[in-house]
């Protein structure tokens, strides 16, 4: 298993000008990212929807690279989204699935069939043209640059060490320094979108 910080640090040099939807990795990513205006920390609008949101953004911005830090708990809520993404074939969509095998934000309970799910295989079976899985940092670090130059949609499933939160939600530090609306406004300004 990899540490989330190490995964994000290995990804950062290859980011280019990609839009990054940081999902449950937001707190760690904000310490590493150098392009805040291209980051989109959405918090948790409704669990299970990040991948289809990212697909929508990729379809509306087909000339920009979209990277999503997704989680296995989110994706298990709507596995059908993988077929939906594969059908649309967004060449600019990179789906990094950070799989800690548990619901870390609720105390670390395991997700269904946590140990044996193979999300790269599922994505490939749904029609992703390219899918990868990593369980050690060296392989990930060596490969991520090349993977991000492949045409999307690409699934990158990474086993990570859980960082379990077990204090009441009201007592937690917010994941992002910006509110969702501030982050959305910053991104839309960067994209030149005013609809």
């Amino acid at each position, binding site marked *: 298993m990899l540490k989330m910080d190490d995964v994000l640090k290995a990804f950062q040099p290859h980011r280019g000008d990609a839009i990054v939807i940081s999902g449950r990795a937001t707190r760690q990513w904000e310490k590493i990212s150098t392009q805040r205006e291209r980051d989109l920390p959405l918090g948790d609008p*409704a669990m299970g929807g990040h991948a289809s949101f990212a697909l929508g953004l990729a379809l509306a911005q087909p000339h920009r690279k979209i990277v999503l830090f997704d989680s296995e708990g989110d994706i298990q809520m709507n596995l059908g*989204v993988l077929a939906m993404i594969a059908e649309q074939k967004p060449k600019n969509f990179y789906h990094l699935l950070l799989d800690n095998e548990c619901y870390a934000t609720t105390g670390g309970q395991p997700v269904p069939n946590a140990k044996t799910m193979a999300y790269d295989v599922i994505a490939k079976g749904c029609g992703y043209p390219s899918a990868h899985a990593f369980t050690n940092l060296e392989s990930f670090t060596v490969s991520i640059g090349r993977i991000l130059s492949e045409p999307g949609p690409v699934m990158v499933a990474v086993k990570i060490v859980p960082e379990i939160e077990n204090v009441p939600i009201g007592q937690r530090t917010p994941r992002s320094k910006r509110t969702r609306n501030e982050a959305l406004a910053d991104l839309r300004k960067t994209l030149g979108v005013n609809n």
Partner: protein
Amino acid sequence: MTEEASLSPEIVLAEIKKNGVTHVVWLPDSETNWLYTLMKAEPSLTLVTVPREGLAFSCASGIHIGGGKPVILIQNTGLMEAGDSMRGWTKDMNIPVVLIVGYRGYTRHGVNKDTAATYTEPFLHAFHVPFYLVENSEDAPRISIAFADAQRTRQPAAILVGDEYHGFNR
């Protein structure tokens, strides 16, 4: 209701085009196949099929944030399934999106045999989503009213298509 008073899919498509829609995020139901055939042939529209209705709301949100103009086309049954996604991905994020919702079980006289119809309007009221009933082609301008509503409020607005057994299904 006579056949002449039914809802023409061509008119629905014209309303969608008139309002500048770029993406139709939808899950087919048995009554919208003729609209599907027309939309598929329309080069200005991208169709995004969802496997579950909740995904329509998050996808539409992403499309809007990216500068597109989505419309969501689903049935009332799926709308009710998708309540939390609608709340989180469109209402809380101030996404001005129109939902065109097949009103399964709707009867003009109000004697319902299908609870899908019974709960549809209370559901929309509970989520504070304004809605307009469209039963035939003469009602179709209400679709533009819904688009204007959504844009003005930066919130979802709904069209209930109460023509399940007529114009959409030739």
